[in-house]
Protein backbone atom coordinates (compact mmCIF):
# COMPACT_ATOMS: atom_id res chain seq x y z
CA UNK A 1 0.00 0.00 0.00
CA UNK A 2 1.06 3.60 -0.31
CA UNK A 3 2.16 5.28 2.89
CA UNK A 4 -0.95 7.51 2.68
CA UNK A 5 0.80 10.34 4.52
CA UNK A 6 -1.00 13.18 2.77
CA UNK A 7 -4.69 13.78 2.17
CA UNK A 8 -3.85 16.65 -0.19
CA UNK A 9 -0.46 17.17 -1.84
CA UNK A 10 -0.21 20.72 -3.03
CA UNK A 11 2.57 23.29 -2.76
CA UNK A 12 1.98 26.62 -1.03
CA UNK A 13 4.95 28.96 -1.40
CA UNK A 14 5.93 31.36 1.33
CA UNK A 15 7.78 34.65 0.91
CA UNK A 16 11.29 34.47 -0.50
CA UNK A 17 13.36 35.19 2.57
CA UNK A 18 12.92 34.27 6.16
CA UNK A 19 14.06 31.90 8.88
CA UNK A 20 12.29 28.96 7.20
CA UNK A 21 13.30 29.71 3.59
CA UNK A 22 14.30 26.38 1.97
CA UNK A 23 12.33 24.52 4.64
CA UNK A 24 9.46 22.25 3.58
CA UNK A 25 6.55 21.88 5.99
CA UNK A 26 3.70 19.36 6.13
CA UNK A 27 0.55 20.68 7.83
CA UNK A 28 -2.06 18.59 9.63
CA UNK A 29 -5.37 18.65 7.81
CA UNK A 30 -7.28 20.29 10.67
CA UNK A 31 -5.29 23.53 10.25
CA UNK A 32 -6.96 25.92 7.79
CA UNK A 33 -5.18 26.75 4.54
CA UNK A 34 -6.77 29.39 2.32
CA UNK A 35 -7.90 27.89 -0.98
CA UNK A 36 -6.59 24.40 -0.10
CA UNK A 37 -8.84 21.53 0.96
CA UNK A 38 -8.95 21.05 4.76
CA UNK A 39 -10.83 17.86 5.65
CA UNK A 40 -9.97 17.04 9.29
CA UNK A 41 -9.77 13.44 8.05
CA UNK A 42 -13.57 13.43 7.83
CA UNK A 43 -16.09 12.68 5.10
CA UNK A 44 -18.07 15.56 6.65
CA UNK A 45 -15.51 18.03 5.24
CA UNK A 46 -14.28 16.14 2.17
CA UNK A 47 -14.87 19.16 -0.05
CA UNK A 48 -14.33 22.00 2.46
CA UNK A 49 -12.00 24.76 1.24
CA UNK A 50 -11.28 27.40 3.91
CA UNK A 51 -11.53 31.04 2.82
CA UNK A 52 -8.71 32.04 5.21
CA UNK A 53 -5.38 30.87 6.65
CA UNK A 54 -4.83 29.78 10.23
CA UNK A 55 -2.48 32.17 12.04
CA UNK A 56 0.24 29.49 12.17
CA UNK A 57 -0.03 29.06 8.37
CA UNK A 58 0.30 32.83 7.81
CA UNK A 59 3.35 32.80 10.06
CA UNK A 60 4.93 29.88 8.18
CA UNK A 61 4.42 31.69 4.86
CA UNK A 62 5.82 34.94 6.26
CA UNK A 63 8.88 32.99 7.46
CA UNK A 64 9.54 31.74 3.93
CA UNK A 65 8.46 28.13 4.46
CA UNK A 66 7.13 26.00 1.61
CA UNK A 67 4.06 23.98 2.59
CA UNK A 68 4.06 20.66 0.73
CA UNK A 69 0.71 19.20 1.71
CA UNK A 70 -2.01 18.49 4.23
CA UNK A 71 -1.45 15.39 6.30
CA UNK A 72 -3.66 12.46 7.25
CA UNK A 73 -5.06 12.32 10.77
CA UNK A 74 -7.61 10.59 12.95
CA UNK A 75 -11.01 12.07 12.15
CA UNK A 76 -11.23 15.49 13.86
CA UNK A 77 -8.19 14.47 15.94
CA UNK A 78 -10.08 11.67 17.69
CA UNK A 79 -7.79 8.66 17.86
CA UNK A 80 -4.36 7.37 18.79
CA UNK A 81 -3.52 5.53 15.54
CA UNK A 82 -4.60 7.66 12.51
CA UNK A 83 -6.84 4.70 11.63
CA UNK A 84 -10.11 6.60 12.23
CA UNK A 85 -9.38 8.80 9.18
CA UNK A 86 -12.07 8.67 6.49
CA UNK A 87 -9.15 8.60 4.02
CA UNK A 88 -7.64 5.32 5.23
CA UNK A 89 -4.77 4.43 7.55
CA UNK A 90 -1.20 5.74 7.31
CA UNK A 91 1.85 3.47 7.30
CA UNK A 92 4.54 4.03 9.95
CA UNK A 93 7.77 4.71 8.00
CA UNK A 94 9.86 3.77 11.05
CA UNK A 95 7.97 0.53 11.79
CA UNK A 96 6.25 -0.96 8.73
CA UNK A 97 3.02 -2.82 9.52
CA UNK A 98 2.46 -0.64 12.58
CA UNK A 99 0.41 2.49 13.11
CA UNK A 100 2.19 5.87 13.09
CA UNK A 101 0.30 6.92 16.23
CA UNK A 102 -2.26 9.65 16.28
CA UNK A 103 -3.98 11.76 15.84
CA UNK A 104 -1.27 13.71 13.93
CA UNK A 105 0.05 10.48 12.36
CA UNK A 106 0.46 11.88 8.86
CA UNK A 107 2.58 14.80 10.09
CA UNK A 108 4.94 12.56 12.08
CA UNK A 109 5.15 10.09 9.19
CA UNK A 110 5.90 12.91 6.71
CA UNK A 111 8.94 13.93 8.76
CA UNK A 112 10.04 10.34 9.45
CA UNK A 113 9.81 9.48 5.72
CA UNK A 114 11.63 12.64 4.61
CA UNK A 115 8.57 13.96 2.77
CA UNK A 116 8.94 17.25 4.65
CA UNK A 117 11.70 18.83 6.76
CA UNK A 118 9.28 19.71 9.54
CA UNK A 119 5.54 19.42 10.17
CA UNK A 120 2.75 20.90 12.25
CA UNK A 121 0.34 18.83 14.27
CA UNK A 122 -2.13 19.52 17.06
CA UNK A 123 -2.12 17.96 20.51
CA UNK A 124 -5.34 17.71 22.53
CA UNK A 125 -4.34 14.70 24.66
CA UNK A 126 -1.07 13.53 23.11
CA UNK A 127 -1.75 13.86 19.39
CA UNK A 128 1.71 15.32 18.69
CA UNK A 129 3.75 13.37 21.24
CA UNK A 130 2.26 9.93 20.53
CA UNK A 131 3.00 9.94 16.78
CA UNK A 132 6.41 11.53 17.40
CA UNK A 133 7.23 8.62 19.73
CA UNK A 134 5.82 5.95 17.40
CA UNK A 135 7.60 7.35 14.29
CA UNK A 136 10.93 8.04 16.02
CA UNK A 137 10.89 11.83 15.56
CA UNK A 138 10.74 14.90 17.80
CA UNK A 139 7.41 16.54 18.70
CA UNK A 140 6.65 19.55 20.91
CA UNK A 141 3.34 20.24 22.65
CA UNK A 142 3.60 23.90 23.70
CA UNK A 143 2.22 25.48 26.87
CA UNK A 144 -1.49 26.26 26.51
CA UNK A 145 -1.60 29.83 25.20
CA UNK A 146 1.83 29.94 23.52
CA UNK A 147 0.59 29.20 19.98
CA UNK A 148 -2.52 30.63 18.33
CA UNK A 149 -5.39 28.23 17.63
CA UNK A 150 -7.03 30.64 15.17
CA UNK A 151 -7.90 28.52 12.14
CA UNK A 152 -7.44 25.19 13.95
CA UNK A 153 -10.70 23.28 13.66
CA UNK A 154 -11.70 22.93 17.31
CA UNK A 155 -12.05 19.56 19.03
CA UNK A 156 -11.26 20.13 22.73
CA UNK A 157 -10.38 23.79 22.80
CA UNK A 158 -9.44 24.12 26.49
CA UNK A 159 -6.82 21.39 25.96
CA UNK A 160 -5.29 21.71 22.51
CA UNK A 161 -2.25 23.40 21.07
CA UNK A 162 -0.57 23.37 17.67
CA UNK A 163 3.09 22.31 17.72
CA UNK A 164 5.99 21.18 15.51
CA UNK A 165 7.56 17.86 14.45
CA UNK A 166 11.14 17.52 13.15
CA UNK A 167 13.96 15.00 13.03
CA UNK A 168 16.03 17.18 15.39
CA UNK A 169 15.10 19.13 18.51
CA UNK A 170 16.76 22.21 17.03
CA UNK A 171 14.62 22.16 13.86
CA UNK A 172 11.44 21.65 15.91
CA UNK A 173 12.48 24.58 18.12
CA UNK A 174 13.16 26.79 15.08
CA UNK A 175 9.64 26.04 13.83
CA UNK A 176 8.23 26.86 17.26
CA UNK A 177 10.05 30.21 17.07
CA UNK A 178 8.03 31.02 13.95
CA UNK A 179 4.57 29.95 15.14
CA UNK A 180 4.70 31.01 18.83
CA UNK A 181 3.49 34.30 20.24
CA UNK A 182 0.29 36.19 21.01
CA UNK A 183 -2.40 36.60 18.36
CA UNK A 184 -5.28 39.04 18.71
CA UNK A 185 -7.49 36.49 16.93
CA UNK A 186 -7.05 33.99 19.78
CA UNK A 187 -7.76 35.55 23.17
CA UNK A 188 -6.28 32.54 24.99
CA UNK A 189 -2.77 33.32 23.68
CA UNK A 190 -0.38 35.04 26.06
CA UNK A 191 3.03 36.62 26.04
CA UNK A 192 5.32 34.27 27.98
CA UNK A 193 6.38 35.83 31.29
CA UNK A 194 9.71 37.63 31.04
CA UNK A 195 12.71 35.73 32.34
CA UNK A 196 16.44 35.92 31.67
CA UNK A 197 16.03 34.07 28.38
CA UNK A 198 12.95 35.68 26.85
CA UNK A 199 15.01 37.50 24.24
CA UNK A 200 16.71 34.39 22.91
CA UNK A 201 15.16 32.02 20.39
CA UNK A 202 13.91 28.53 21.15
CA UNK A 203 16.39 27.16 18.61
CA UNK A 204 19.25 28.76 20.57
CA UNK A 205 18.21 26.70 23.59
CA UNK A 206 19.10 23.44 21.78
CA UNK A 207 22.54 23.33 23.37
CA UNK A 208 22.33 19.83 24.83
CA UNK A 209 23.67 21.22 28.12
CA UNK A 210 22.11 19.21 30.96
CA UNK A 211 24.85 19.72 33.52
CA UNK A 212 23.10 20.20 36.88
CA UNK A 213 19.62 19.48 35.46
CA UNK A 214 17.27 17.94 38.02
CA UNK A 215 14.88 15.36 36.52
CA UNK A 216 11.81 14.10 38.36
CA UNK A 217 10.50 10.68 37.34
CA UNK A 218 6.80 10.21 38.27
CA UNK A 219 6.55 6.58 39.36
CA UNK A 220 2.86 6.41 38.35
CA UNK A 221 3.82 6.94 34.69
CA UNK A 222 6.04 3.83 34.68
CA UNK A 223 3.50 1.50 36.28
CA UNK A 224 2.00 -0.94 33.83
CA UNK A 225 4.23 0.18 30.98
CA UNK A 226 5.74 -2.35 28.56
CA UNK A 227 8.99 -3.78 29.90
CA UNK A 228 11.00 -3.02 26.77
CA UNK A 229 9.71 0.57 26.80
CA UNK A 230 10.72 0.98 30.45
CA UNK A 231 14.22 -0.43 29.82
CA UNK A 232 14.71 1.96 26.90
CA UNK A 233 13.45 4.83 29.06
CA UNK A 234 16.00 4.10 31.82
CA UNK A 235 18.81 3.85 29.25
CA UNK A 236 17.92 7.38 28.14
CA UNK A 237 17.89 8.63 31.74
CA UNK A 238 21.32 6.98 32.28
CA UNK A 239 22.53 8.83 29.20
CA UNK A 240 21.33 12.17 30.62
CA UNK A 241 22.90 11.31 33.98
CA UNK A 242 26.24 10.63 32.33
CA UNK A 243 26.04 14.14 30.88
CA UNK A 244 25.63 15.75 34.32
CA UNK A 245 21.89 15.53 35.02
CA UNK A 246 20.49 13.88 38.15
CA UNK A 247 17.15 12.18 38.66
CA UNK A 248 14.86 11.38 41.57
CA UNK A 249 11.50 9.67 41.77
CA UNK A 250 8.41 11.77 42.40
CA UNK A 251 4.75 10.94 42.91
CA UNK A 252 1.70 12.33 41.12
CA UNK A 253 -1.25 10.56 42.79
CA UNK A 254 -3.82 12.54 40.76
CA UNK A 255 -2.75 11.06 37.41
CA UNK A 256 -4.55 7.85 38.35
CA UNK A 257 -7.71 9.74 37.36
CA UNK A 258 -6.28 11.73 34.46
CA UNK A 259 -7.47 9.52 31.61
CA UNK A 260 -11.11 9.50 32.69
CA UNK A 261 -11.02 13.24 33.48
CA UNK A 262 -9.44 13.96 30.13
CA UNK A 263 -11.98 11.94 28.17
CA UNK A 264 -14.97 13.44 29.98
CA UNK A 265 -13.70 16.98 29.31
CA UNK A 266 -12.53 16.33 25.74
CA UNK A 267 -15.77 14.55 24.78
CA UNK A 268 -17.89 17.24 26.40
CA UNK A 269 -16.06 19.97 24.50
CA UNK A 270 -16.23 17.90 21.32
CA UNK A 271 -19.99 17.48 21.60
CA UNK A 272 -20.30 21.27 21.71
CA UNK A 273 -17.61 22.15 19.15
CA UNK A 274 -18.85 19.65 16.58
CA UNK A 275 -22.43 20.93 16.84
CA UNK A 276 -21.49 23.40 14.08
CA UNK A 277 -21.38 20.60 11.50
CA UNK A 278 -24.98 20.71 10.35
CA UNK A 279 -24.42 20.78 6.59
CA UNK A 280 -25.76 24.30 6.13
CA UNK A 281 -22.70 26.57 6.05
CA UNK A 282 -20.23 23.85 5.05
CA UNK A 283 -19.85 20.09 5.09
CA UNK A 284 -21.99 17.14 4.13
CA UNK A 285 -25.59 18.29 3.68
CA UNK A 286 -28.46 16.20 4.97
CA UNK A 287 -30.33 16.42 1.67
CA UNK A 288 -32.92 18.98 2.82
CA UNK A 289 -35.75 16.47 3.01
CA UNK A 290 -37.65 16.67 6.22
CA UNK A 291 -37.35 19.29 8.92
CA UNK A 292 -34.32 20.98 10.43
CA UNK A 293 -33.67 18.29 13.10
CA UNK A 294 -34.07 15.36 10.71
CA UNK A 295 -31.86 16.99 8.08
CA UNK A 296 -29.08 17.76 10.56
CA UNK A 297 -29.26 14.24 12.02
CA UNK A 298 -28.95 12.77 8.54
CA UNK A 299 -25.98 15.00 7.64
CA UNK A 300 -24.21 13.94 10.84
CA UNK A 301 -25.01 10.26 10.37
CA UNK A 302 -23.47 10.30 6.92
CA UNK A 303 -20.59 12.70 7.60
CA UNK A 304 -19.16 11.39 10.87
CA UNK A 305 -17.31 8.11 11.49
CA UNK A 306 -17.77 5.78 14.49
CA UNK A 307 -15.21 7.31 16.85
CA UNK A 308 -16.53 10.84 16.29
CA UNK A 309 -20.12 9.70 16.89
CA UNK A 310 -19.01 7.84 20.01
CA UNK A 311 -17.34 10.94 21.47
CA UNK A 312 -20.16 13.33 20.55
CA UNK A 313 -22.70 11.00 22.17
CA UNK A 314 -20.66 10.38 25.32
CA UNK A 315 -19.97 14.12 25.63
CA UNK A 316 -23.65 14.91 25.21
CA UNK A 317 -24.43 12.30 27.88
CA UNK A 318 -21.83 13.71 30.32
CA UNK A 319 -23.29 17.20 29.98
CA UNK A 320 -26.94 16.18 30.09
CA UNK A 321 -29.29 16.95 32.95
CA UNK A 322 -28.63 14.73 35.95
CA UNK A 323 -25.12 13.70 34.87
CA UNK A 324 -23.31 17.03 34.65
CA UNK A 325 -22.21 17.06 38.32
CA UNK A 326 -21.34 13.37 38.31
CA UNK A 327 -19.04 13.49 35.30
CA UNK A 328 -18.16 16.98 34.07
CA UNK A 329 -17.83 18.70 37.43
CA UNK A 330 -15.79 15.83 38.91
CA UNK A 331 -13.58 15.85 35.85
CA UNK A 332 -12.89 19.56 36.40
CA UNK A 333 -11.98 18.78 40.02
CA UNK A 334 -9.59 16.11 38.77
CA UNK A 335 -8.12 18.58 36.28
CA UNK A 336 -7.42 21.12 39.04
CA UNK A 337 -5.88 18.35 41.18
CA UNK A 338 -3.59 17.27 38.33
CA UNK A 339 -2.46 20.88 37.88
CA UNK A 340 -1.66 21.23 41.59
CA UNK A 341 0.22 17.93 41.55
CA UNK A 342 2.42 18.98 38.63
CA UNK A 343 3.07 22.42 40.13
CA UNK A 344 4.15 20.74 43.36
CA UNK A 345 6.65 18.27 41.87
CA UNK A 346 8.01 20.90 39.46
CA UNK A 347 9.11 22.89 42.49
CA UNK A 348 11.51 20.03 43.27
CA UNK A 349 12.63 19.27 39.71
CA UNK A 350 13.48 21.24 36.56
CA UNK A 351 11.72 18.77 34.27
CA UNK A 352 9.75 15.54 34.59
CA UNK A 353 10.54 12.48 32.49
CA UNK A 354 8.49 9.43 31.48
CA UNK A 355 8.03 7.17 28.50
CA UNK A 356 5.86 9.15 26.04
CA UNK A 357 3.70 6.09 25.37
CA UNK A 358 3.51 3.11 27.74
CA UNK A 359 3.61 0.75 24.75
CA UNK A 360 5.47 0.43 21.45
CA UNK A 361 3.51 1.20 18.24
CA UNK A 362 0.41 -1.00 17.82
CA UNK A 363 0.13 -3.30 14.87
CA UNK A 364 -2.31 -1.90 12.35
CA UNK A 365 -5.92 -2.85 13.11
CA UNK A 366 -5.02 -4.07 16.60
CA UNK A 367 -6.84 -1.47 18.68
CA UNK A 368 -9.92 -0.47 16.70
CA UNK A 369 -12.42 -2.84 18.30
CA UNK A 370 -11.96 -1.74 21.88
CA UNK A 371 -12.18 2.04 22.31
CA UNK A 372 -11.51 1.93 26.06
CA UNK A 373 -8.20 0.09 25.57
CA UNK A 374 -7.20 2.75 23.05
CA UNK A 375 -8.06 5.55 25.49
CA UNK A 376 -5.93 3.94 28.23
CA UNK A 377 -2.83 4.14 25.98
CA UNK A 378 -2.95 7.93 26.47
CA UNK A 379 -2.18 7.64 30.21
CA UNK A 380 1.17 9.46 30.05
CA UNK A 381 0.23 12.26 27.66
CA UNK A 382 -3.23 13.48 28.76
CA UNK A 383 -2.16 14.72 32.23
CA UNK A 384 0.03 17.34 30.53
CA UNK A 385 -2.92 18.78 28.59
CA UNK A 386 -5.05 18.85 31.74
CA UNK A 387 -2.26 20.85 33.44
CA UNK A 388 -1.77 23.23 30.43
CA UNK A 389 1.99 22.46 30.51
CA UNK A 390 4.59 22.13 27.74
CA UNK A 391 6.11 18.77 26.82
CA UNK A 392 8.49 17.34 24.26
CA UNK A 393 8.83 13.80 22.96
CA UNK A 394 12.30 12.82 21.75
CA UNK A 395 13.47 9.46 20.39
CA UNK A 396 14.89 7.37 23.26
CA UNK A 397 15.84 4.26 21.32
CA UNK A 398 14.08 1.08 20.25
CA UNK A 399 12.55 -2.04 21.73
CA UNK A 400 12.39 -5.06 19.40
CA UNK A 401 13.08 -2.71 16.49
CA UNK A 402 10.17 -0.39 17.39
CA UNK A 403 10.69 3.30 18.29
CA UNK A 404 10.32 4.45 21.92
CA UNK A 405 9.83 8.10 22.89
CA UNK A 406 10.96 9.91 26.02
CA UNK A 407 8.59 12.60 27.25
CA UNK A 408 9.90 15.62 29.15
CA UNK A 409 7.42 17.94 30.88
CA UNK A 410 8.26 21.42 32.16
CA UNK A 411 6.63 24.32 33.97
CA UNK A 412 4.33 26.68 32.03
CA UNK A 413 6.30 28.50 29.33
CA UNK A 414 9.38 26.41 30.20
CA UNK A 415 9.89 25.29 26.58
CA UNK A 416 13.57 26.30 26.54
CA UNK A 417 14.47 23.91 29.37
CA UNK A 418 12.71 21.06 27.53
CA UNK A 419 14.52 21.93 24.29
CA UNK A 420 17.87 22.07 26.11
CA UNK A 421 17.31 18.71 27.81
CA UNK A 422 15.76 17.05 24.76
CA UNK A 423 18.66 18.09 22.55
CA UNK A 424 21.06 16.23 24.88
CA UNK A 425 19.59 12.96 23.65
CA UNK A 426 20.05 13.47 19.94
Amino acid at each position, binding site marked *: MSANIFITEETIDGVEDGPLADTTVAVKDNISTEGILTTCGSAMLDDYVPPYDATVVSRLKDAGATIVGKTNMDEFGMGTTTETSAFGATENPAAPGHVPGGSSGGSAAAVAAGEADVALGSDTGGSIRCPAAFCGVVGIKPTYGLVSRYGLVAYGNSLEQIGPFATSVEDAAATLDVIAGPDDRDATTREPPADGESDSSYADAATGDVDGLSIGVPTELLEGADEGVVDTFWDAIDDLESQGASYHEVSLPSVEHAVEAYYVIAMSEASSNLARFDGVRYGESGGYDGNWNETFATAR*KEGFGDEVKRRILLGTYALSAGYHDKYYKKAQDARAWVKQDFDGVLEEADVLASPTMPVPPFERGESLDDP*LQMYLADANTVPVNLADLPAISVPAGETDGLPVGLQLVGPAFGERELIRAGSALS
Partner: protein
Amino acid sequence: MSDDAVSPEEVRHVAELARVDLADDEVDQFARQFADILDYFETLDEVPEVDREADLANVMRPDEVRDTLEREEALQNATKTEDGYFKGPNVS
Protein backbone atom coordinates in the same frame (compact mmCIF):
# COMPACT_ATOMS: atom_id res chain seq x y z
CA MET B 1 -21.69 -2.96 35.71
CA SER B 2 -24.92 -4.82 35.22
CA ASP B 3 -26.89 -2.52 37.53
CA ASP B 4 -26.53 0.57 35.41
CA ALA B 5 -25.74 -0.76 31.98
CA VAL B 6 -26.69 1.59 29.18
CA SER B 7 -29.89 0.68 27.38
CA PRO B 8 -30.43 1.06 23.65
CA GLU B 9 -33.22 3.54 24.49
CA GLU B 10 -30.75 5.76 26.35
CA VAL B 11 -28.35 5.68 23.40
CA ARG B 12 -31.19 6.67 21.07
CA HIS B 13 -32.21 9.50 23.39
CA VAL B 14 -28.68 10.93 23.59
CA ALA B 15 -28.27 10.55 19.82
CA GLU B 16 -31.45 12.53 19.37
CA LEU B 17 -30.18 15.30 21.66
CA ALA B 18 -26.92 15.36 19.69
CA ARG B 19 -28.71 15.29 16.31
CA VAL B 20 -26.95 12.16 15.13
CA ASP B 21 -29.07 9.58 13.35
CA LEU B 22 -27.92 6.03 14.16
CA ALA B 23 -28.44 2.68 12.44
CA ASP B 24 -29.84 -0.12 14.65
CA ASP B 25 -26.54 -2.01 14.75
CA GLU B 26 -24.76 1.21 15.80
CA VAL B 27 -27.20 1.61 18.69
CA ASP B 28 -26.44 -1.90 19.98
CA GLN B 29 -22.69 -1.49 19.55
CA PHE B 30 -22.63 1.89 21.32
CA ALA B 31 -24.81 0.60 24.18
CA ARG B 32 -22.25 -2.16 24.84
CA GLN B 33 -19.22 0.14 24.54
CA PHE B 34 -20.76 2.96 26.60
CA ALA B 35 -21.36 0.56 29.48
CA ASP B 36 -17.60 -0.14 29.69
CA ILE B 37 -16.53 3.45 29.17
CA LEU B 38 -19.02 4.96 31.65
CA ASP B 39 -18.08 2.28 34.17
CA TYR B 40 -14.52 3.52 33.87
CA PHE B 41 -15.61 7.19 34.19
CA GLU B 42 -17.32 6.22 37.48
CA THR B 43 -13.89 6.17 39.16
CA LEU B 44 -14.07 9.99 39.11
CA ASP B 45 -16.19 9.51 42.23
CA GLU B 46 -12.93 8.96 44.12
CA VAL B 47 -11.63 12.42 43.20
CA PRO B 48 -11.73 14.79 46.18
CA GLU B 49 -13.29 18.20 45.85
CA VAL B 50 -10.50 20.53 44.83
CA ASP B 51 -10.14 24.25 45.34
CA ARG B 52 -9.99 25.59 41.82
CA GLU B 53 -8.20 28.91 41.75
CA ALA B 54 -8.96 30.27 38.30
CA ASP B 55 -5.88 32.11 37.08
CA LEU B 56 -7.81 33.94 34.41
CA ALA B 57 -7.89 37.50 33.13
CA ASN B 58 -10.39 39.04 30.78
CA VAL B 59 -9.01 39.94 27.37
CA MET B 60 -10.57 43.05 25.89
CA ARG B 61 -10.07 44.89 22.62
CA PRO B 62 -11.38 48.17 21.28
CA ASP B 63 -14.73 47.76 19.54
CA GLU B 64 -13.54 48.84 16.12
CA VAL B 65 -14.61 47.83 12.63
CA ARG B 66 -12.14 45.40 11.07
CA ASP B 67 -11.89 43.63 7.73
CA THR B 68 -13.88 40.42 7.61
CA LEU B 69 -14.55 37.76 5.01
CA GLU B 70 -16.35 38.83 1.86
CA ARG B 71 -19.88 37.49 1.73
CA GLU B 72 -19.09 35.29 -1.30
CA GLU B 73 -16.16 33.73 0.56
CA ALA B 74 -18.30 33.02 3.59
CA LEU B 75 -20.90 31.34 1.39
CA GLN B 76 -18.55 29.39 -0.87
CA ASN B 77 -18.78 26.10 1.08
CA ALA B 78 -22.57 26.08 1.49
CA THR B 79 -24.65 23.55 -0.43
CA LYS B 80 -27.55 25.98 -0.84
CA THR B 81 -27.61 29.76 -0.79
CA GLU B 82 -30.20 32.34 -1.81
CA ASP B 83 -29.85 36.11 -2.28
CA GLY B 84 -26.50 36.15 -0.48
CA TYR B 85 -27.72 34.11 2.50
CA PHE B 86 -27.23 30.54 3.69
CA LYS B 87 -30.30 28.45 2.99
CA GLY B 88 -31.26 25.90 5.64
CA PRO B 89 -33.89 23.21 5.89
CA ASN B 90 -37.43 23.90 7.14
CA VAL B 91 -37.51 24.60 10.86
CA SER B 92 -40.56 22.40 11.39
